[in-house]
């Protein structure tokens, strides 16, 4: 495992979780969280879970289509998920209020379509509590 140079503390691999509250293309925080996730994985740490809450649920939208010359944040998460088998959890309660649904939720709520992107899964707030228990560090990326 790589060992960052130039630090005087003893390096050890840690388990991180991230809580992301910001929608892409509305605030910078989703992009910052994605960059931070890449950096911690590059340093050899473990990313236990990314929990998308509040407006952060829009990170999991399959329908966002930023202009060609702007960063595609949702795609960035998906690429990282494929490479590292990340647990990308979109809070189901926050997502329901904001119109981010997978197909079983769309059916249950009698909505005309689903829009949760591949690589993300809907789950309850318990997954945030679980991340707080099972991670060495939990970093919040606000709105």
């Amino acid at each position, binding site marked *: 495992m790589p060992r960052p140079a130039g630090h005087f503390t003893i390096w050890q691999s840690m388990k991180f979780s991230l*809580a992301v*509250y910001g929608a892409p293309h509305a605030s910078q925080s989703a992009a910052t969280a994605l960059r931070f996730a890449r950096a911690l994985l590059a340093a050899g740490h473990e990313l236990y879970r990314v929990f998308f*809450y*509040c407006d952060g649920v829009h990170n999991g939208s399959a329908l966002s289509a930023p202009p060609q010359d702007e960063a595609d944040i949702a795609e960035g998460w998906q690429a990282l998920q494929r490479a590292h088998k990340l647990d990308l959890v979109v809070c189901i*309660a*926050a997502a329901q*209020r904001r119109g981010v649904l997978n197909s079983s939720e769309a059916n249950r709520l009698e909505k005309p379509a689903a829009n949760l992107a591949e690589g993300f899964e809907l789950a*309850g*707030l*318990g997954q*945030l*509590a*679980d991340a*707080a*228990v099972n*991670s060495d*560090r*939990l970093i*919040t990326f*606000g*709105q």
Partner: protein
Amino acid sequence: MANRTLAICRQAPYGSALAREGLEAVLAAAAMDQSPELLFVNDGVFQLLDGQEPAAIEQKSLQRNLQALPMFGVETLHVCKLSLSQRGIDPAQLQITGAEIVLVVDVGKFIAGFDIALNF
């Protein structure tokens, strides 16, 4: 060793969803017997004001969420003393049935006692 977790609630109620969604996250954790300690600071202390009547703006009262906390075992609410006095709130006004209000004078020292912070 288990993490000591602190939920920090800094937002006023109703203007944004964050105050509500923060309390919902705390309640969900409490329901799993993993309830964090709770600190209300800055505009978050406005969540504790008595007599909120948000029906006129078509919202549910946040006080229902607060009152549910003791039922799930969250019996102590830590509240920043400075934040109260800056907002002209008398600590004696604050009452959440079943919960004890504990004033925190040194917020930095209090936060330092935890491993993990949830920020709302």
